[in-house]
């Protein structure tokens, strides 16, 4: 081998070894697509888009080596993504496969009030084994979400949430910022000990209650369901102890989340946002949890284009935004600064797993067209035996 050929071959081999190959590999990019909510495919019944959705108890892995029991829509956390056009007639057949009660609330959507999913206000809860059919016309345009409205504090952080996207063929955002790719990111926060304790407790209570219901022995005080406030007040005066008093069932503390997820996963299992130089991507941010998030993108500003699904009159340029519980915000990221950039909550308590940094909702914006030589690692990395920039680092 000539010396020049040897040097060329050697250099190529070294470069290849030093590439962040796993991150930019086609297989990684394809696998990453599964880290976003998967679309639920409807069947057409005349002019109605009909969806089948169920709820069941499911074992969900938040990160490798850490699983919890969750409530999962159609065995997914978050639930599958609904994606319809504005004005579509939608029918969702919701089947309850658990022994718990549930409803579905269509957050931010203008559904008929009987379809709003608030138990004992708009409908009776969907009990064990029952099916409820939600029907409405998809309005308004934008990024919305759905979640259980029964035992909301527990059921939402147990996984009962998902995205509902109402598209418009004449999309105003797409006109202003042409884009081909978009991503849905659903944030949540979980007190896994609270989830475990309360799910167990609720399951035990429901076994008991279902038996009484079947034998026609509904008891207002036992079920804590009254016809009127006066009826409830009378019961209290007669010595009834509501569940919220500490001598009955109330815990002494509120839930304190230790796990912070994006699309049901914590770092290092969080999704990556892939982009190319010169490309615009749309990111739909949904906060289905109970904590505020202050999301900061390194190396870029982005445009805040929609708030609660509605296009804002004047897009706002920023690099950190506040995502409150129940909010949806849409942003446009312009591919202007090649590299691998972190995108994370700047309340760094939420970038932890069980109290240990790094973790939580830490994720990355990745330029998939980044030249290989830009990702070369240094001498120290090679001494550590790394072949690429380590995208998974679990300890400081």
């Amino acid at each position, binding site marked *: 081998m000539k010396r020049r050929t040897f040097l060329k071959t050697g250099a190529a081999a070294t470069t290849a070894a030093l590439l962040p190959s796993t991150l930019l590999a086609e297989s990684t990019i394809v696998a990453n697509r599964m880290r976003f909510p998967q679309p639920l495919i409807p069947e057409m019944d005349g002019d109605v888009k009909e969806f089948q959705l169920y709820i069941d*108890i*499911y*074992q969900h892995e938040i990160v490798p080596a850490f*699983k*919890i*029991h969750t409530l999962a829509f159609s065995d997914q956390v978050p639930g599958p993504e609904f994606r319809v056009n504005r004005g579509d007639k939608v029918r969702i057949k919701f089947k309850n496969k658990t022994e718990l009660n549930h409803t579905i609330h269509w957050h931010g959507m203008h559904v008929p009030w009987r379809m709003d999913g608030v138990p004992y206000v708009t409908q009776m809860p969907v009990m064990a084994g029952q099916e409820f059919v939600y029907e409405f016309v998809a309005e308004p345009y934008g990024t919305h979400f759905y979640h259980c409205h029964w035992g909301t504090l527990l059921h939402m952080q147990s996984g009962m949430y998902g995205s509902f996207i109402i598209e418009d063929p004449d999309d105003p955002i797409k006109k202003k910022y042409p884009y081909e790719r978009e991503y849905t990111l659903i944030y949540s926060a979980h007190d896994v*000990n609270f989830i*475990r*304790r309360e*799910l*167990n407790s609720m*399951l*035990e*209570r429901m*076994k*008991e*209650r279902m*038996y*009484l219901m079947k034998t026609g*022995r509904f008891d207002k*005080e*036992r079920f804590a369901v009254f016809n009127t406030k006066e009826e409830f007040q009378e019961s209290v005066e007669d010595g009834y*102890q509501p569940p919220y008093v500490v*001598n*009955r069932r109330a815990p002494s503390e509120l839930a304190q989340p230790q796990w912070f997820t994006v699309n049901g996963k914590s770092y290092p299992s969080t999704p990556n946002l892939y982009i190319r130089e010169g490309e615009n991507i749309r990111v739909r941010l949904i906060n289905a949890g109970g904590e505020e998030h202050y999301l900061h993108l390194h190396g870029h500003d982005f445009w805040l284009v929609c708030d609660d699904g509605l296009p804002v009159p004047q897009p706002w340029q920023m690099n950190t935004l506040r995502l409150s519980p129940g909010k949806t915000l849409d942003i446009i990221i312009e591919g202007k600064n090649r590299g691998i950039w972190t995108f994370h909550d700047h309340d760094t308590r939420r970038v932890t797993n069980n109290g240990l940094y790094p973790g939580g909702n830490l994720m990355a914006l990745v330029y998939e067209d980044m030249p290989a030589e830009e990702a070369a690692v240094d001498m120290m990395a090679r001494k550590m035996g790394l072949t690429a920039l380590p995208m998974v680092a679990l300890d400081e």
Partner: protein
Amino acid sequence: MARIVLKMFMSIAMLLGIVDFVQAQVNPEIQLGARGVMSFNVNNESGETTSAVNDFSDSGILTGFRQKLYNNYRGQLVIGFQFPDANSNLGQVFFHQVFVLIENKSDILKMGRSRVRSSLIEFPTLRDDDAIFLTDVLNPFSAGDDTEDNQYGNVLELTHIFGQRYWLTVHGERYRETPIPPAEETNFDLNGIGFSFQYIVPQTQTWNRELLKQVGVSFNNFLTDRPGDFNTFDRTLKNVIFSTILNIRPDPVHFWDLRHQTIYNSGFSEVATVSDYASMTRARNVATFTSLRYLYRKLERPAAQVALSFGYKTFPDLENSTSQYQLLANAFYRLGENFDAGFQFQYIAFNGDLQKLFGKNETRFQVGLVYSIDNVWNDQFDDRNSLLNLEHGYIP
């Protein structure tokens, strides 16, 4: 010899090394159980009446520390003490539980002082030992000064659980010898071995409303043939226990169950009279005890309980026809979560040789208060028998 000394030195050095590297950041679950039983007693023993203004025996505290280990195992340390009966020669407090336990999904290894396998089920009595002559196999190494000799010992126990509900346990015990022979103070050899096989429906699945809650059989072999171990006869003393719990009416409001246990003690045919505690434990006998319990549950919590129990014991090989029977009735009313007011009546009659030891009969009235708690702090993982783990897949 030098090699043995060196090996011992190395072992000690390694142990010290491990201790030096104890890391503080792993926080265990902390468990606290406590029970206070305060009663006013009136006794009539064969016509002679006595009373105790404040009997707090059997009150005690249990503390536990539990954490996850590597490879899906869990470890636990339990330390507990209780106030023994007056005149028990056990001092002010007795450490009845001091053990370490290691377990995974289907195996449990327990080492230390704990409840011995002298009975398979518990009965609804005010105190654990209220009917101990009928509910437990009696410790043949004891002088009978205290009931704790029959309940607690140094145990080595290995349990394997098949299919969630079938428990096979092999065990060895060092039963307490009382009075402690001076030469034996350092003797920790096993003096009892045995096994048991039980079908147990987990408490969390009570509302599955199955008729059979527990059925079990157990075999114990007291090693009474060893020199120094009360070896009057050069043979071991064997017994068999059969038990069952039937949910007669597993109703969430009006709950009824029936408990039964029979103990067959093979005894020694040479024992023709019972003149002391040792001969009573060595005479062939059959003891049965049955309880019928009604539990009223209000607001998904126990509110009141009434139980009626009857037991009978006979010694067929004795020259004098000898037997014992006991009637026990009690009622508890819940004053608040964990706090009960109770009343208990007992009548015990002795016939034949037992009259020489215990008199003709004994009547006892007790009125008291019972406060019991069982709490966990810093909880981190689920119990084997939680509904999530039993019915939705076990998470280690």
